[in-house]
């Protein structure tokens, strides 16, 4: 998200402040009137429910990516990730970090995968629950847990990729982690929010998401020429201001 917001700011001059958390918690907060402009959810249900409750702007629901889960251990760990989820049965795996399945879609995927591989009942007392997938990852990076089930995007992020190893969990083991975003009706800056949404659909952002391991829907991309439209929109404010100044100078003789 930092890369996306930085590129958006560079191209349009408009700032995006990102707050990270679990999708379920954000869903609750938005229902209670939290002042966000755009909501990026790690599943499709929460944005759809907000749409049904008429808390979103019309035609802004957008499926931007699909996520994946991986097993992750620090470099110094002796756990063999080639065993797949069976590695969780290893005695050396005393604490296993997953995101809280009650409100984090990645936690629900981790639970589903463990159940599919018949390891959940044997490891349930070793689970350490993170509030969200980022906190879950920090548990393993810091050594508070021996192994974790985290998002591939985090395993590939600069904070983690040089500090450990990962093994992808078969996508057949858990329901797809489809992700969607919406512009919220409570937004006080809907034009910029819609502009950010349009920016997200450009091929350059699709490629960026792919580089972090996300599946990006092929039909989501819009032509490159969109970026020139964004630039035009950015110019609009300044060109209007300069036009106003010209009129003033003309009227006042300065």
């Amino acid at each position, binding site marked *: *998200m930092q890369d*996306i*917001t930085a590129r958006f700011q560079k191209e349009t*001059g*408009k*700032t*995006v*402040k*990102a*707050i*990270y*958390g*679990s*999708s379920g918690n*954000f869903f609750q*907060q*938005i229902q209670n009137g*939290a*002042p*966000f*402009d*755009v*909501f*990026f*959810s*790690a599943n499709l249900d929460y944005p759809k429910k907000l749409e049904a409750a008429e808390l979103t702007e019309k035609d802004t629901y957008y499926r931007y990516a699909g*996520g994946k889960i991986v097993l992750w251990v620090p470099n110094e760990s002796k756990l063999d990730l080639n065993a797949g989820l069976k590695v969780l049965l290893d005695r050396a795996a005393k604490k296993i970090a997953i995101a809280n399945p009650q409100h*984090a*879609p*990645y936690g629900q995927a981790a639970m589903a995968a463990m159940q599919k591989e018949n390891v959940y009942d044997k490891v349930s007392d070793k689970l350490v629950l993170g509030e*969200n*997938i*980022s*906190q879950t990852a920090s548990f393993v990076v810091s050594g508070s847990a021996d192994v974790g089930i985290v*998002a591939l*995007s*985090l395993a590939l992020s600069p904070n983690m990729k040089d500090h450990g190893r990962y093994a992808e969990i078969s996508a057949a083991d858990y329901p797809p982690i489809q*992700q969607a975003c919406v512009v919220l009706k409570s*937004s006080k*800056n809907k034009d*910029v*929010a819609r502009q*950010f949404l349009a920016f997200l659909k450009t091929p350059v952002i699709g490629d960026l998401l792919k580089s972090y391991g996300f599946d990006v829907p092929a039909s989501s991309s819009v032509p490159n020429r969109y970026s020139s439209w964004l630039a035009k929109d950015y110019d609009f*404010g*300044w060109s*209007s*201001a300069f036009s*106003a*100044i010209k009129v*003033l*100078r003309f009227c*006042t*003789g*300065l």
Partner: protein
Amino acid sequence: MFYRKIVSAMCLGVALFGAMICSAQEITVAAAADL
């Protein structure tokens, strides 16, 4: 003439200030922690 220039300068200042305010738009996004 002097007062006219003062008023004009003030108008220019207000216009520039308005342009700066308009360009400083910010949005807040609530993002899933995998992003």
